[in-house]
């Protein structure tokens, strides 16, 4: 009780605090009223006729009932959408599992973990694309909405991680100065240009670099670009972790007779990864959110399918519903990632004390 009353007293401790309390209270009330009115008071419920949406200004549930599958899966063949859902579910499970692994809720051996990832990604591609095991083939232009968003984000992050590790190691070592310089230049250049230019390079310039006559679809082209882009960010996060290790670690390992790769693989890298996890999670959130930018090169992620949903002549005034749906998805999934990040940050801070 005392802590509550102390807290309440803090609310009005100084004039500034009182002002902040009143101002934020008023703002929250205003916001809360609008949210309540849109979501509940003015809402058209699923059982009401869709025509009511033109009259009432609130959330139009009939629209969501009608269009949720379109927003989630776009033009993925309707009767095969169980495959797209399964693939999304698989990829999400993989992401959640990784989150738990990071905060130590799940403790899988590294090799098992890597194997699960490889298997999960392969299975997801197989489910989405088909063409084997009796699954009919679905070209990547049909991978729309949620599956392509998670697939691009997760595959890019998974691919970028090894790239980042190699770059970080190359930049961190002293033995090979040329290699180090190459890594440094690459990292700095990749981090100094906007992701949009990188996506453009993937779609426009990458095809030019391939042997004459080959054609690369936008999805794989963008994936390649994303891997090399995020790799540089991960490299910097990991380098921070590597630099925070004391020299003693390396000396101890080499006095045990371990070679460079053993020292790195068994001693330094695991510690460096653990230490750089908070900043890695930050980079991952950024990478995940930025995946939505692929919409500019014509890949139909959730923002693009949301647009399709309200471009149907019958539902043309429901843009807000579609964007709120997508916004909520991003908010919830990012909140999960941020929660992991905060948890890691707290653990690290308590470790340091």
């Amino acid at each position, binding site marked *: 009780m005392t802590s509550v009353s102390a807290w309440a007293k803090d609310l009005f401790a100084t004039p500034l605090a009182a002002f902040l309390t009143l101002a934020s209270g008023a703002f929250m009330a205003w916001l809360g009223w609008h949210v309540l009115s849109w979501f509940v008071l003015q809402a058209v419920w699923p059982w009401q006729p869709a025509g009511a949406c033109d009259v009432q200004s609130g959330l139009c549930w009939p629209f969501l009932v009608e269009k949720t599958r379109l927003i989630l899966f776009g033009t993925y063949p309707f009767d095969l959408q169980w495959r797209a859902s399964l693939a999304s579910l698989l990829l999400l499970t993989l992401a959640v599992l990784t989150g738990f692994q990071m905060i130590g809720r799940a403790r899988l051996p590294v090799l098992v973990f890597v194997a699960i990832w490889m298997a999960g990604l392969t299975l997801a591609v197989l489910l989405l694309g088909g063409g084997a095991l009796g699954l009919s083939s679905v070209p990547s232009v049909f991978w*729309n909405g949620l599956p392509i968003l998670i697939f691009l984000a997760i595959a890019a992050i998974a691919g970028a991680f090894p790239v980042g590790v190699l770059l970080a190691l190359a930049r961190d070592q002293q033995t090979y100065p040329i290699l180090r310089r190459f890594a440094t230049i690459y990292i700095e250049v990749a981090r100094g240009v906007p992701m949009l230019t990188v996506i453009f390079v993937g779609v426009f310039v990458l095809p030019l670099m391939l042997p*004459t006559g080959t*054609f690369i679809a936008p999805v794989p082209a963008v994936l390649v670009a994303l891997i090399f882009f995020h790799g540089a960010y991960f490299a910097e996060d990991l380098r921070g972790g590597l630099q925070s290790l004391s020299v003693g670690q390396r000396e101890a390992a080499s006095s045990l007779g371990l070679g460079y790769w053993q020292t790195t693989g068994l001693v330094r890298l695991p510690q460096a990864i653990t230490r750089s996890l908070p900043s890695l999670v930050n980079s991952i959130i950024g990478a995940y959110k930025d995946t939505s930018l692929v919409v500019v090169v*014509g890949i139909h992620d959730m923002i693009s399918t949301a647009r399709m949903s309200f*471009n149907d*002549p019958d539902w*043309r005034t429901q843009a807000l519903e579609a964007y709120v749906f997508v916004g909520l998805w991003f908010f919830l999934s990012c909140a999960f990632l941020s929660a992991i990040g905060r948890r890691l940050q707290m653990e690290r801070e308590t470790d340091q004390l």
Partner: protein
Amino acid sequence: MRLLTFTAVLTVTTIAAGSALAGPVLDEIKANDSLICLVNPNSPGFSVPDSQGVFQGFNTDFCRMAAAAILGDADKADIRGIGFSDSMKTLVARGAHMASRSITATGTRDADVGMAFVATTFYDGQGFMVPASLGVSSATELEGATVCAEDGSTTLLNIADWFGDRGMSYRVENIADKTARLEAFFTGKCDVYASDVSALNSDRLLAEDPAAFMILPEVISAEPLTLVTQPDQELEAAIFWAFQVMLNADKFGITSENIDDVRADLDAQPQSVQRLFAEDGATAEMAAKLGLPQDWAYQVIGQVGSYSEVFERHLGSDTPFNIVLAETQNAPADQGGLMYAFPIR
């Protein structure tokens, strides 16, 4: 245009290398029992996915027309939504058989290897839309106006030419995102919205009160929107004549509704109609030469409909677009339009 030359040449080598194996495109379609057709992923009225993720719209129906004519089943069209420049690349790289996505036929494009312009399904042009409250009745009164147009599009060039030629000043708002662009126009951030007239018609309906906006009479460019295929004489012939069948059907008042009655009582019909649908008619003869189903003309009309039927279904008075066919350039030639039905014999 450079893009097309470029992609075209990029793939000539593939075609040359692959030609020993690949037969004509038409054979490939028949062998796969599926026709890959590219459409705009998000163009209301022309091609937009419905709630099941299946593309619907005016342009989509010409994909279905081709599948009905070649494979006897309109549902065998594998319709894919893909962006403009990617669709060109895909077509030229033989990743698709045809495209029905409002591509303007131009000489330089047709001269490129890897694409054939076959039949113009929609005559369009770039125009201007303004709020009725602006009190403007002609584009020549737009001195000093702010114009909304899609970022990176040829619309920007046409506007610059048009205003430049008349020595008029203007300000452009080149907004890439369609929602943002339309909101900007509807709320009066821009005075004018510039786009293809067909797009103006469909975009107008996204306003809360479409009647508050009007399209100005000036059309500042000619845009014959045309079906494009991979170069293959037989495929081009099949699609061109399938389209002519749809125009002819209009001429004789035949629709998907009454086609079965017409066929049941074919002897009572005029000679031209008999040639269209008789088992020994001109279309059957063409079918034998091109390797199409013998009753392909019937399949096209029965499964897809006549041209005006398709137009009416997706853009006409029962749709929110409410375009009156007879008032556009797409009216039949005998009603003053540009749709001229070639005789089928």
